[in-house]
């Protein structure tokens, strides 16, 4: 029995298909659902945690059907939503104790101390949350989720808005939980985090799984080297032997090749002939970003949120 199993899980909001026939199985691992804003990550988590009824398909958590056996499903999971929700008028200890009581854990006081200690909050445990930083609040939410030792932990963007050090700590905690045998289902749109810390990754785009596998497998689907070219003017996809087009992101076009050094001049030539101006070229190893770009296909512009425009806007502000 897998910890999480979904079959053709689908959810419509009106006419909008937020999650489109998702079929997944996750067991004893850190699984990351990776995708851009609005790709359906939160919607998936809401259905798996019984907060939202699927339009179609089915899902189970620890063998219990999310629609028919809601209470059993909720007994086996903990869920930390995307938006932080901790009571700022209560202390850290009170917040965790509150959840311990709701879960009805035995020896609550000891479990609370333990959970606070794991999240390194012991010395601030009796301060009001009002005085906590964002990273501390996130760790507190994790402590709340962990008081009852769930078999499956759902974390919706656990590291959003945190600095690099705090993100790393959260991930170390998540890894430690995984070692204890917990199944962790996280969503994120940070490719590097998924790459570094997760056992398996599902890339989701517009509600569909576009690629699924371990980060290493996914990267191995590309050839050994990735060449990124900054171009100006029009770019038409072109065919060069031994070089494969990956995708385009703004003015950056990516290719992969088995031997990048040899491919560089060939590519420069071909691009020049096709009439576009090459500003710079760089050679590196594939990352999940490239996998993403290839899987999701030629996204003309990152949907909804245009980073380049945003950057220009920021520059104008200064």
């Amino acid at each position, binding site marked *: 029995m897998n910890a999480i199993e979904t079959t053709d899980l689908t959810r419509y909001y009106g006419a909008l298909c937020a999650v489109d026939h998702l079929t997944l199985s996750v067991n004893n691992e850190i699984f990351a659902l990776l995708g851009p804003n609005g790709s359906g990550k939160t919607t998936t988590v809401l259905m798996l945690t*019984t907060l939202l009824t699927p339009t179609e398909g089915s899902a189970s958590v620890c063998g219990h059907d999310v629609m028919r056996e809601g209470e059993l499903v909720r007994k086996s999971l903990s869920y930390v939503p995307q938006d*932080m929700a901790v009571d700022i008028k209560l202390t850290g200890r*009170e917040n965790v104790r509150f959840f311990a009581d709701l879960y009805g854990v035995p020896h609550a006081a000891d479990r609370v101390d333990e959970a606070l200690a794991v999240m390194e909050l012991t010395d601030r445990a009796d301060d009001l949350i009002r005085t906590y930083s964002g990273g501390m609040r996130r760790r507190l939410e994790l402590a709340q989720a962990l008081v009852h030792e769930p078999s499956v932990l759902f974390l919706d963007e656990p590291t959003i808005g945190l600095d690099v050090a705090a993100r790393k700590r959260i991930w170390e905690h998540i890894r430690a939980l995984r070692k204890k045998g917990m199944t962790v289902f996280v969503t994120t749109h940070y490719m590097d985090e998924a790459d570094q810390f997760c056992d398996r990754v599902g890339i989701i785009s517009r509600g569909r799984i576009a690629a699924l596998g371990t980060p290493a497998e996914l990267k191995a689907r590309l050839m050994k080297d990735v060449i990124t070219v900054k171009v100006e003017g029009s770019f038409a996809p072109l065919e060069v032997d031994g070089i494969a087009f990956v995708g385009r992101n703004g003015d950056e076009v990516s290719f992969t090749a088995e031997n990048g050094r040899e491919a560089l001049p060939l590519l420069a030539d071909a691009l020049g002939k096709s009439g576009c101006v090459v500003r710079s070229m760089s050679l590196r190893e594939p990352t999940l970003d490239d996998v993403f770009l290839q899987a999701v296909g030629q996204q003309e512009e990152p949907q909804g949120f245009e980073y380049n425009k945003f950057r220009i806007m920021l520059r104008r502000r200064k």
Partner: protein
Amino acid sequence: MNGVVSYMKRDFTKWFRGRVAVISALIMPAAWLIFVGLALPVQFTGNYLDFITPGILVMTMLSAGLSGGALLMFDKILGFLNRFLALPTPRSSILVGKILFITGRGLIQTTIILVIALLIGATLLSPVQYGLTYFILFLFGVLISAFATTIALYLEDHDSYAAFNTMISMPLFFTSSALMPYSVMPSWLATIAHLNPLSYAIDAVRDVTAGGFPAGPVLVLLILTGAVLAICMHVFRKVTV
């Protein structure tokens, strides 16, 4: 049961830590008592303060109950509700916890109003009469808070909840028997007042203060509260976001 106590404890702790809110909810009913109860020249009774006190007590409970619905609204907006709904704790205990907190808070507030009324000259009653009064107020509090909390579950945001609150609280109060007996009301108002659930609570408390036992109004209140509670519990068990 565990869940109910935990949810209620959380709300009480938060309430006691926000000192301003503890006082501010009392300003309105206290003002009514003092400025209307003491100052209004009326002919139909010699002691208007004694007449209006039951109305003000119920009004205090009404506004405590209606403003209590905002608690669930905030839990929803701030994302707490999502976390609670994902817990194995029965979902109906969210509702029951809210009802007990809101009603408990209302009873504390009505006690303060009662003390103020006594201080400015209302007649002291017997312990049994106070016991009955509290029972009626509790029943009414459960009715209003269950209703308000369930409405909040369905409204979009806090603004629409605030609009709902103002839209129903004033009309309910003015079309009840709070301010005058049915005998001096114009007949159209008397008809509405007889249908208003607020009137049943007020009439019941008034009967108690006059030394009687209000079997009729209490029965109506019991049935109404039971029915509303059953519906609201059902709604909460089924809720999804």
